[in-house]
């Protein structure tokens, strides 16, 4: 079965330029997103996951710049689109919601003014029609008494409500792709559950594709179809969600899964990854993960492995799975053996 690919990112490179130094925040990221599916981009701070998301809509702030690669959205390369074209896509065909609902809405305009604005820019709706559609949207995301809420200012709403408003605003023009950058990280867990449910529900209803940027493997397991694990500006493993959790191949993915304290199982001792997350302006030369990897050999420190298919389900960027592997041939990268 051939699926329709809505987004095809090839070798995306985004750098920040400061005082003659180029910091490669995103360093050759590629993935494909089929229509109606959700891909999770997982990683820790500095992995480049958020910069990848911002690059897609070209929302990078100075001194960030896309320096190479393609972002193909329905046959159009967004890296080459004009400012005008990208503005027509933003908030219309591709929408984005952000981590901080408390600061993502403009404090001096009402909820209604902010929603209407999107509808006016992309659909030319006037005030009356805009308000009507706005109320419908607020209802859609489960905001009680939407007619009252639409006249309120952001500070009159709770964090969860504000994130719902952000979602309503993002959905205003029925986007084909929603980019959610840590949409629930700043929210309490019971509110997180509400927001994830809304996103899932609306995705099904509108056949929307979603890019879910997160650091939380739990959120990935609950919402995603595919997962790209990022480390040091690169995708180190790409697979469907079941494979990632059941048969993770990259030592970093495995380490990440073993580090998570679970609320549903007892674990005596966590198996953390040693060392610290590398800083983007001081990346190791070979495999970015080598200094923290329990299996690293000289080859890992010297040369960067490529992202290769190791089974029908996984693509992994690791020397262990290549013919050139010079370490223990019997090495076994063990995933978590936990049952609930």
């Amino acid at each position, binding site marked *: 079965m051939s699926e329709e690919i809505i987004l095809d990112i090839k070798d995306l490179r985004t750098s920040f330029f400061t005082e003659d130094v180029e910091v490669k925040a995103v360093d050759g990221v590629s993935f494909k997103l089929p229509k109606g599916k959700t891909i999770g981009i997982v990683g820790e701070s500095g992995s480049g996951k958020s910069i990848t998301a911002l690059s897609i809509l070209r929302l990078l702030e100075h001194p960030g710049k896309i320096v190479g690669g393609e972002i193909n959205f329905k046959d159009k390369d967004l890296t080459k689109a004009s400012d005008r074209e990208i503005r027509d896509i933003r908030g219309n065909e591709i929408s984005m919601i952000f981590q901080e609902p408390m600061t993502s809405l403009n404090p001096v305009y009402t909820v209604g003014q902010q929603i209407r604005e999107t509808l006016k820019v992309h659909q030319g709706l006037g005030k009356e029609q805009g308000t009507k559609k706005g109320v419908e949207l607020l209802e859609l995301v489960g905001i009680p008494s939407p007619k009252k809420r639409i006249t309120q200012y952001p500070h009159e709403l709770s964090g969860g409500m504000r994130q719902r408003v952000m979602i309503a605003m993002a959905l205003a023009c029925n986007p084909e792709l929603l980019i959610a950058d840590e949409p629930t990280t700043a929210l309490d*867990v019971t509110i997180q*559950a*509400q927001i994830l449910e809304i996103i899932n529900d609306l995705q099904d209803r509108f056949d929307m594709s979603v890019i879910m940027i997160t650091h939380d493997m*739990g959120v990935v397991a609950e919402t995603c179809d595919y997962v790209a694990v990022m480390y040091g500006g690169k995708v180190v493993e790409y697979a469907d969600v079941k494979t990632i959790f059941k048969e993770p191949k990259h030592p970093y993915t495995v380490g990440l899964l073993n580090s998570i304290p679970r*609320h549903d199982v007892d674990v005596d001792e966590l198996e953390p990854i040693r060392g610290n997350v590398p800083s983007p302006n001081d990346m190791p030369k070979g495999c970015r993960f080598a200094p923290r990897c329990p299996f690293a050999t000289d080859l890992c420190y010297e040369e960067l492995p490529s992202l290769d298919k190791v089974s029908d389900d996984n693509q992994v960027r690791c020397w262990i799975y290549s013919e050139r592997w010079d370490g223990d041939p019997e090495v076994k990268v063990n995933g978590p053996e936990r049952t609930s």
Partner: protein
Amino acid sequence: MAQKELLKVNHLKQYFPIKGGFFGRTVNHVKAVDDVSFEIYEGETLSVVGESGCGKSTTGRAILRLDDPTEGTIEFDGEDLLSLSKREMRNRRKDIQVIFQDPYASLNPRQTVAKILTEAMEIQNVVPKNKRRERAIELLETVGLNAEQIDRYPHEFSGGQRQRVGIARALAVEPKLIVCDEAVSALDVSVQAQVLNLLKKLQREFNLTFLFIAHDLGVVRHISDRVAVMYLGKVVEIADKKSLFENPQHPYTKALLSAIPTPDPENKKERIVLKGDVPSPIDPPTGCRFHTRCPFATDLCKQDIPELRNLDHMEEGHRAACHHIEKIVSGDMKPNY
């Protein structure tokens, strides 16, 4: 095992006044903590969990006497901390230390690690002057840092390492109780696991007692012996870790546990999604504070404040504050979503 109570909190209340009106008089109160009691046994970890605004951090601050509570007593080693004078309390601080969430903000950026650690020892005068640097090096090694790092400044460390420095500072005065206020929340998962393991190791080595304030229930399950769940200024359930996670009694605890996304895509569980937001602690709901969001709420819940109680089917020490535990367990009451 009969254990010694190290800390006993009795009917703690912390109301913060809201000023307003013509002459800035007190028009209302934020009832941040409203009649909370619990005890911590020597050598154990008691976690206090809950969502923002539940009063867990305020409880921690009261124990450290960073705020002055409105009512209640806090007995530490049999002595009421709230009746101590400022000077007596300063001496007591040696026994009760704190580790904060933000390792960036809680260390003085102009002091080297050596200075940070020796200053802590100096204030409490626990180590003779000529031994302090030696002791500081020892502490660094205890928390997994190198002796060479002792003359560095906080900004030269990563987030996880800085939190280790914070832990070393707390250990410097050989405390009995450490209050960990969201101590690992700001850390990346891979580093968070290191710090959690370190805390466990230190607890074993030095027979430390932890009051662990957190919102992440995964972390709480990993680190705790017992857990208290708070909602809007009240403890709604308190129990041994295993009993609480595997046999939660209060509808709020159940919802909280079910709301956490599980990192296991093949085990998608039934989820209880609570309606609405947490109400304001300025004017909290009458009766059971959870009744506005509870799927089992009845008129009784709107009127009477439920007490923490232990029932036959619950393990010893497991107590929950809900009027309808029996009926919910027997299945006589059905949730009304």
